[in-house]
């Protein structure tokens, strides 16, 4: 098969298994103490700054970053184990998730020394949260068509006008990495990729308004962030002016490759396992087996990506493939479980399985959209197959 799609198997990591056990113990103690309750899709909806700070205190945020920036110089395999345990427990990780996953690594790669020194230690402490400023009302999958503009004023600062949407938890966040147009597009089909720039934007600046966009169940996770002559200091340029497209592509490899792309509905599967264990029903056991086989394959794919990150690679095509297969699985968990159980599905159900099914169902349209639709991802995979 095409070598751009396949990665070498991940070598076993004792360090990862060690930290996995520590996280598992920590989560069991927190659950027992009642500091959180398990929910589906908590990396979008479970905002709990106190919990994020606890993770920071234990060294489980910014794990792979250099120590001089508050990091812990551990491997991507160790970070993988930590994130996987948190997701499997349905822990409230949404506050810091974006900052730890992609904004921090982006700053580490492209930020100035001052930006890194100022922000990275706070992310690693679980105190500083980020939003992704990519999509706009008129630019979804066609990201390069964004219209938010930044123009330098006489002081060299950026005056930003436009709007970003689907910014998860902007109302709890401190910064955004915002993709803006600073120059004209070039010629040709890929000309739109020119003239784009990433800015590091303090969301408390004057001229920035955050408006809620409620998802279909009424939950407030998404926002519209409106820029009305917001003045972003010139030293908040991230990376190179005009290199925004390249930088965003690298950021998306981090955004697309993690275990949150197949574990968003894991708490439902765990609840279903309790039901199958109680009933011993053959159809339920078979469904549990089928879904588990898919999950185990996804784990192996995702582990291979973590190992590739440790080798210094940026596997954007395998990441797109895992996200396509993984998010399809996330939605299928609810569909397959409901075929073999008889339980009223409601957020108010006294039955935890009925509640988990309800949460998984109501969040299901998001799985295969966020972070790049599966159609976009399959286009990237097709490129990996040599078809584009």
């Amino acid at each position, binding site marked *: *098969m*095409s*070598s751009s*799609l*396949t990665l*070498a*198997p991940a070598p076993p990591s004792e360090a990862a298994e060690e930290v*996995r056990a520590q996280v*598992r113990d920590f989560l069991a103690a927190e659950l027992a103490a009642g500091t959180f309750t398990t929910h589906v899709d908590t990396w979008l909806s479970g905002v709990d700054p106190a919990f994020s700070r606890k993770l920071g205190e234990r060294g489980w945020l910014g794990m792979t970053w250099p120590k001089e920036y508050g990091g812990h110089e551990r491997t991507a395999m160790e970070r993988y184990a930590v994130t996987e345990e948190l997701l*499997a*427990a349905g822990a409230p990780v949404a506050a810091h998730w974006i900052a730890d996953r992609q904004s921090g690594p982006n700053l580490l790669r492209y930020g100035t020394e001052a930006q890194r020194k100022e922000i990275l230690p706070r992310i690693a402490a679980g105190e500083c949260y980020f939003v992704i400023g990519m999509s706009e009302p008129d630019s979804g999958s066609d990201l390069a068509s964004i219209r938010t503009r930044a123009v330098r004023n006489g002081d060299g600062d950026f005056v930003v006008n436009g709007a970003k949407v689907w910014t998860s938890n902007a109302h709890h966040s401190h910064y955004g990495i915002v993709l803006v147009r600073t120059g004209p597009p070039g010629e040709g089909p890929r000309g739109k990729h020119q003239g784009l720039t990433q800015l590091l934007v303090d969301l408390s600046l004057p001229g920035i308004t955050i408006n809620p966009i409620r998802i279909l169940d009424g939950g407030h996770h998404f926002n519209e962030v409106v820029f009305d002559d917001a003045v972003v200091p010139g030293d908040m340029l991230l990376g190179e002016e005009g290199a925004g497209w390249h930088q965003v592509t690298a950021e998306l490899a981090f955004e697309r490759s993690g275990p949150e792309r197949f574990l968003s509905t*894991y708490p439902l*599967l*765990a609840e279903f*396992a*309790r*039901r*199958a*264990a*109680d009933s011993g029903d*053959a159809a*339920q*056991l*078979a*469904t*549990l*087996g*089928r879904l*588990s*086989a*898919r*999950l*185990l*394959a*996804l*784990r*192996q*794919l995702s582990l*291979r990506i973590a190992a590739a990150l440790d080798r210094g690679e940026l596997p954007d095509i*395998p990441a797109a*493939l895992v996200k*396509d*297969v993984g998010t399809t699985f996330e939605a299928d968990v609810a569909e397959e479980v409901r075929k073999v159980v008889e339980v009223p599905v409601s957020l108010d159900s006294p039955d935890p399985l009925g509640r988990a099914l309800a949460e998984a169902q109501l969040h299901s349209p998001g799985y295969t959209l966020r972070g790049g639709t599966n*159609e976009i*991802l*399959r*286009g990237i*995979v*097709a490129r*990996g*197959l*040599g*078809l*584009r």
Partner: protein
Amino acid sequence: MASDQDLVVETVQDVLAGHEPFALTADTAWDAGLWADLAEAGLTGVGLPEEAGGSGGELADAIAVVRTLASGAGAVPVAEQLLVAGPALLAAGLDLPDPAEPLTLAVAGAVTAAPSDDGDGPGRWTLTGTATDVAWAGVARHVAVLAAAPEGIDGAVLALVDAQGLATSDARNLAGEPRGSLVLAGAPASGALLTAEQAAVVRARYALARAVQLGAALERVLAWTVQYAGERQQFGRPLGKFQSVQMQLAQMAGEVTAVTALVDAAVHVLERDEDVVLAAAAAKVRAGAAVEVVARLAHQVHGAIGFTQEYRLHHLTRRLWSWRDEAGSELTWSRVLGAGLLSRGGDELWPALTRVV
């Protein structure tokens, strides 16, 4: 990517290249000429220790032989011999037959084994009953039969039978590979008592062997389909330039890549000599599930030509459709996996999952 098995793969490919591909017909149950050349090159003993009469080498070498022959649709019982029956006989302390003579495995719960000596450890047994769905029945010279233990004894008996002279039926699977029955009427055999756990490992090895074959064939079907989509022109451009076709090929690639990753991981479990039952179950279930998507889309992209006997595609898609149901169906193994993951209780799914591979 380069690996230690490149030489093995090249050697098998060279042998394959010396034979007409796709040998199975209504009149031909296997490719005896291919087998003879593989045996001549020592490839029918790869991964089996030299002191037992094998050719030596690692499990990874045996996997490479099986994968290469599976993707080349080689009609020979190599997976059964190298990955299942051979290692199972050796693990049970039994002698390995000459690797130049084809050996297969029969999972035969309806066959009972009675001791014809004291029955303690490897010894002589008498087998009675009919073994059904035996891969390469009528072709294999030797059959390792996983039979029911005598009444009152837990576990199973693994016994080596000389298949010459046994009555066989001529059933075939969807790909035309022999899957007939063997009638054992007091057949003498050397054999050994296995615990239930040991018997489960033999069945798991068989499932993993089929998963390895499925994975290799799935990869080749994807490669053929990508190639075809690049060559076949419609509306003035290659099929592969149409977005709808690209989506189908990307979906196939997702399935194939997932299977490869899990099968590789399950093979590593076997290499590390850890408990392979749940890993094999997961690999077999995942590989079987991918067949539905990959075979369907491969035929859809190939169009009518892929539906013909003349064109090569069916030699692998018919094997995919067969292999997914053999050595334990998806239903069988998904139940084993589901129940196995809950063996420490319904609250322990996640720790169980992270232990499988």
